């Protein structure tokens, strides 16, 4: 039972508010009491047209309307009800209708004196009982709490037992009143009025009959929800579908269109209804993003068989599933299946509607005739078997080996064909392995071959699928090697002719920087083609842990400070401003003042909350980036770039939120090496949250994305970059003429040779070093930049991710928790470093200790791990990639270190947590101790993570040449550029970088589109 409890005053402090809060707590078994404030309501104004009523008033009225009962807690001013409460009640019964009509209501009151608001309560009752309100007021019982200061305890409890007893009796009676009024059903009313009612019957349609129950359940079952506004403009009915997009309430039924919509939405709704009434339209649709997914709303004119207007139905549902089917080629299968039976000409027509990947579809649109003639040549019938294979028909379930462990695979075989391959479960990293899930099974079945290309970036998953199908074929008595030796699968519908395309801006790279640049270009109303060399969007972003740094003190201040954070801040006060590079000194002084103010404030209030500011983010980015390489070259972040980043990161995060990235604001996170808790983390799995939202946004705004389209050269004429040339794996060359080109192709972390060539920071880089990067991150953008004489900055600085999987380089295996909870031990079982240090310190310490080390965790620390699940952890323990034991002794044996040493290490560490201080290595931020079994050890080793250096850019993302002059038409954003993070990048700053500089590159490029064409010199 839902009860609205209205605080009858707008005062900041009120015992009447305390009384309602007490009731909410005390009666939580009986009812769900929602305490409503009235201070936010404007003063009642009867002259105000309904359309201009504020959202606050509307929300207040909706809440009261949808409550089963209403409590008024009323102070007394001048022997009477406070004006603010009268005003609130006036809003409730005035325009467009009285929502207190027959509403069960109860009046209570508290006062400082002994009278306990008796006169004000009398008035409230009189007002509620007046014909204007006509509420059902609980009579008899009176809740009058006097001498509030004596009767309320500090934590809001009532000490007077008699008052509590009276309150309990009164509230119980109120609940009984609500029950009594509610249990009178419509049927009861009709029976009293001697009207018949229908109990069980059929509705007979010309096409059959339905019981009422069936009709109701059909509407509740279909995946779209329906709302009906009848011919008289009243909200008549809605389908009771679970998890509706539009949340409706039965109390809204029978309301006029005016009442059930927020005033500001009314004009649009009325326009639709009027267009249906006057016959000018029969359907209006609105595709939009609701609750984070794509949703289609369609309004239909409901017309009688003779065409007369019966009402308007609103038909709403998520279309993600349908789009997913389309994108995964579901309709392609249907058409090719159909074509076996249909005449040849329908085949041609059907294949034009093939659910082609986005790139091919776009090409088809560019030249419909060509693509039609090509599809005629293509055989719509499945490729016949090339050798004799006989299988024992049936469905085989095998375990395939993927990047993150095994996953089940269903293979269906007929006598001589592979009929279906289906991947079960989703153990592979979202956005990486799951591309292979779709592409490979489709190609294996269509080509009847195991000779298919692996998906770049998901080769483990791809091989897993191929070998899994081979295993099933073997079990069915077939010859998998023969299947692997069959001709390579070639998509018969693929377009292989060379061609030329025009666009406004070409973006190279389908990671976060490229996608956010493309989305911004579309926002600005320009055309964009995004070129991604692999089969999937995501780049390195999809592998990111998720948190994006942005100082948002208003949000961060809501969290408590962690032990030790004040010491980190104190360290800034202890620093000498003369040790700071000149560019940053002014900001550094501002920061010192902010910290001084903060420390004074926490001391005064006794409440230690999390501090942050744009300046702290800026200074940490700068200090984090100061590095000197082995040759003695010292670099630090370029002030204009660091300023641009830190000034804009929060706006970037808010933009992402706006376009559909769902953030989890309940926690502020700190990725490893971030130095401060300012990470905004998407709700969806890690970096995939960003990529899916941006990808959806670009598709929804008709952006063109071309996958498997590597750019091999820039078109550079007369000092101007004028487009790119794409060479596809099938030999096709696509020339794209664009007025601007944005490089967003990432660094070169997966190109070990290139890393070795430029490295000046580490004494040596092993040939077999792992990387956290996508295998596609091979420095393509650097090479393209070099081809037009672009300058480079900081190329020798390579960042290692110290805590990577020793074999795969993967970040999120094992227990990867916030650094406050890291306990790192070497192969002797001893700690060897301040776990809170920056990444390169951790990596160097790890190299000095032999490379391999372990993260020790207990059951509580396990719960703070990122991006994993119970199933994944269990799988990793089974595979020997994570160690688990009930005692530290056993854990020590498993990782081959001396048990006493490990126990001693843990005991010491725990004592440092208690003390908030680590005398051995100086760790100064702690959270949990290692004490609750089971215990875990996650093996780690540094891997190449981020290539710090890159092309020289200015704060507007122009690429500069070796002389520092802008290269017309060329822009860069993200890891391909250098100078922002300088020698070392803070964790969480890469996402802030790409989502800030991606859009900046786009905006700069668009601002210069005209100039660059008419007069290149304007750029100078």
């Amino acid at each position, binding site marked *: 039972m839902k009860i609205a409890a209205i605080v009858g005053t707008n005062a900041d402090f009120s015992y009447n508010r305390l009384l309602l809060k007490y009731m909410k707590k005390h009666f939580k078994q009986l009812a769900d009491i929602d305490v409503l404030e009235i201070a936010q309501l404007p003063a009642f*104004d009867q*002259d105000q047209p309904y359309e201009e009523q504020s959202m606050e008033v509307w929300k207040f009225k909706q809440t009261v309307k949808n409550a089963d009962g209403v409590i008024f807690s009323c102070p007394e001013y001048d022997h*009477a009800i406070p004006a603010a409460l*009268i*005003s609130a009640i*006036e809003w409730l019964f005035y325009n467009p209708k009285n929502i207190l009509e027959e509403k069960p209501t109860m009046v209570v009151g508290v006062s400082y004196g002994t009278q306990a608001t008796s006169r004000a309560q009398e008035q409230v009752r009189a*007002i509620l009982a007046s014909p204007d309100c006509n509420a059902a007021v609980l009579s008899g019982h009176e809740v009058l709490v006097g001498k509030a200061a004596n009767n309320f305890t500090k934590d809001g409890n009532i000490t007077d037992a008699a008052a509590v007893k009276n309150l309990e009796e009164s509230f119980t009676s109120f609940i009984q009143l609500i029950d009594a009024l509610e249990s009178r059903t419509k049927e009861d009313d009709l029976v009293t009025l001697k009207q018949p009612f229908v109990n069980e019957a059929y509705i007979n349609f010309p096409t059959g009959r339905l019981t009422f129950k069936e009709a109701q359940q059909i509407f509740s079952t279909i995946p779209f929800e329906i709302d009906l506004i009848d011919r008289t403009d009243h909200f008549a009915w809605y389908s009771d579908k679970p998890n509706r997009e539009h949340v409706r309430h039965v109390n809204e039924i029978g309301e006029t269109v005016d009442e059930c919509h927020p005033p500001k939405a009314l004009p649009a709704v009325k326009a639709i209804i009027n267009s249906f009434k006057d016959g000018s339209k029969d359907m209006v649709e609105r595709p939009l993003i609701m609750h984070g997914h794509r949703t289609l709303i369609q309004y239909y004119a409901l017309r009688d068989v003779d065409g007369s207007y019966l009402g308007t139905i609103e038909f709403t549902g998520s279309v993600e599933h349908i789009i997913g089917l389309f994108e995964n080629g579901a309709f392609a299968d249907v058409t090719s299946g159909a074509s076996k039976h249909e005449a040849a000409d329908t085949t041609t027509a059907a294949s034009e509607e093939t659910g082609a990947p986005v790139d091919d579809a776009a090409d088809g649109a560019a030249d419909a005739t060509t693509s039609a003639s090509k599809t005629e040549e293509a055989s719509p019938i499945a490729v016949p078997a090339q050798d004799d294979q006989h299988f024992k028909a049936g469905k085989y379930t095998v375990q395939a080996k993927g990047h993150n462990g095994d996953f089940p695979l269903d293979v269906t075989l007929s006598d001589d064909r592979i009929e279906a391959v289906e991947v079960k479960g989703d153990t592979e990293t979202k956005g990486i392995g799951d591309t292979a899930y779709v592409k490979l099974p489709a190609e294996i079945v269509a080509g009847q071959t195991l000779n298919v290309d692996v998906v770049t970036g998901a080769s483990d998953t791809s091989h897993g699928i191929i070998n899994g199908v081979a295993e099933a074929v073997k079990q069915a008595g077939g010859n998998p090697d023969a299947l692997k030796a069959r001709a390579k699968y070639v998509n018969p519908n693929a377009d292989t002719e060379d061609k030329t395309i025009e666009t406004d801006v070409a973006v190279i790279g389908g990671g976060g920087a490229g996608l956010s640049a493309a989305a911004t270009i579309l926002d600005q109303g320009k055309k964009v083609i995004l070129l991604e060399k692999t089969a999937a969007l995501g780049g390195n972003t999809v592998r990111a842990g998720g948190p994006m740094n942005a100082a948002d003190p208003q949000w961060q201040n809501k969290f408590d400070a962690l032990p030790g954070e004040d010491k980190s801040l104190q360290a800034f006060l202890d620093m000498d401003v003369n040790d700071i590079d000149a560019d940053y000194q002014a900001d550094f002084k501002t920061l010192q003042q902010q910290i001084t103010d903060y420390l004074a404030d926490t001391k005064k209030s006794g409440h230690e909350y999390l501090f942050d500011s744009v300046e702290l983010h800026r200074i940490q980015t700068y200090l984090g980036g100061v590095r000197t390489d082995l040759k003695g070259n010292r670099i630090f972040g370029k002030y204009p770039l660091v300023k641009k980043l830190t000034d804009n990161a929060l706006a970037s995060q808010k933009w992402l939120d706006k376009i559909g990235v769902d953030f989890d604001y309940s926690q502020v996170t700190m990725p490893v090496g971030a130095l401060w808790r300012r990470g905004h983390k998407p709700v969806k799995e890690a970096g995939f949250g960003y990529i899916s939202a941006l990808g959806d946004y670009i598709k929804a705004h008709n952006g063109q994305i071309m996958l498997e389209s590597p750019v091999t050269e820039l078109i550079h004429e007369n000092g101007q970059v004028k487009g790119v040339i794409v060479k596809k794996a099938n030999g096709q060359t696509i020339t794209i003429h664009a007025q601007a080109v944005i490089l967003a192709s990432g660094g070169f972390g997966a190109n070990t040779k290139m890393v070795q060539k430029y490295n000046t920071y580490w004494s040596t880089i092993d040939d077999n070093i792992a990387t956290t990067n996508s295998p596609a991150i091979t420095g393509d953008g650097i090479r393209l930049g070099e081809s037009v004489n672009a300058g480079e900055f900081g190329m020798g600085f390579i960042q290692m991710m110290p805590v990577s999987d020793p074999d795969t380089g993967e970040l999120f295996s094992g227990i990867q928790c916030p650094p406050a909870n890291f306990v790192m031990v070497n192969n002797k079982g001893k700690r060897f470093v301040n776990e809170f240090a920056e990444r390169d310190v951790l990596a160097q310490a790890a190299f000095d200790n032999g490379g391999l080390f372990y993260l020790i965790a207990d059951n509580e620390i396990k719960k703070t791990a990122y991006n994993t699940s119970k199933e994944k952890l269990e799988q990793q323990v089974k595979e020997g990639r994570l160690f688990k034991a009930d005692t530290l002794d056993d854990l020590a044996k498993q990782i081959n270190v001396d048990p006493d040493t490990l126990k001693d290490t843990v005991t010491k560490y725990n004592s440092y947590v208690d003390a908030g201080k680590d005398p051995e290595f100086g760790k100064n931020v702690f959270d949990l101790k290692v004490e609750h079994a089971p215990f875990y050890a996650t093996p780690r080793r540094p891997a190449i993570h981020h290539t710090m250096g890159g092309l020289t850019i200015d704060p507007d993302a122009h690429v500069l040449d070796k002389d520092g002059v802008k290269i017309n038409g060329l822009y860069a954003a993200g890891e391909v550029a250098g100078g922002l993070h300088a020698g070392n990048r803070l964790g969480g700053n890469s996402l802030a970088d790409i989502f800030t500089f991606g859009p900046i590159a786009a905006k700069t490029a668009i601002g210069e589109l005209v100039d660059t064409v008419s007069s290149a010199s304007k750029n100078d």
Partner: protein
Amino acid sequence: MKITAIVGSNSKHSSNRKLLKFMARHFDDQDITVADIDQIPMFNENYPGGDPQPVIDLANQIKASDAVIISCAEHAHTVASSLKSVIEWLSYNLHPLANQPVMIVSVSSKPQGGSRAQMALRGILNSPGVNAEAWQGNEFMLGNGNTAFDDNGDLKDEGTVKFLESCFSDFITFAGHKNASKEEA
């Protein structure tokens, strides 16, 4: 006699304003100033910066007057929140109504003429925080306010005007006594 006449509603179309304007014109032997309240914000004891200027202005005007007339609208059997808000302001930091003779009149669009609002208002004015001298004599309640005035804003019914004259004359006598005793004290 200097009289402040408070319009007990923030509505632009209030017939209570019409009534007071009519009285100001009709009783031109007295100095009646009609005061609107639509500029006065909702009372809030935590209002930033203390009493708002329009409240201070109204309080000064009342203080400088010999008597007050309030014409109240009726919503849901009580006074309008906008009028109650004004009285709360005038009984919080400032107390200009204390010992001030007040005449209550009312107009409503329904036949009842605001009888319950008058009763409520009388109780409020007599409460210890306000401590006004609400006149207990004749009750002038004008029903069907929408049709009671002609185009010039004059009351159409001669009997009504006569009754208003007698009420007002009694009030002036009452106010005269009150002011005399104020001066004596």
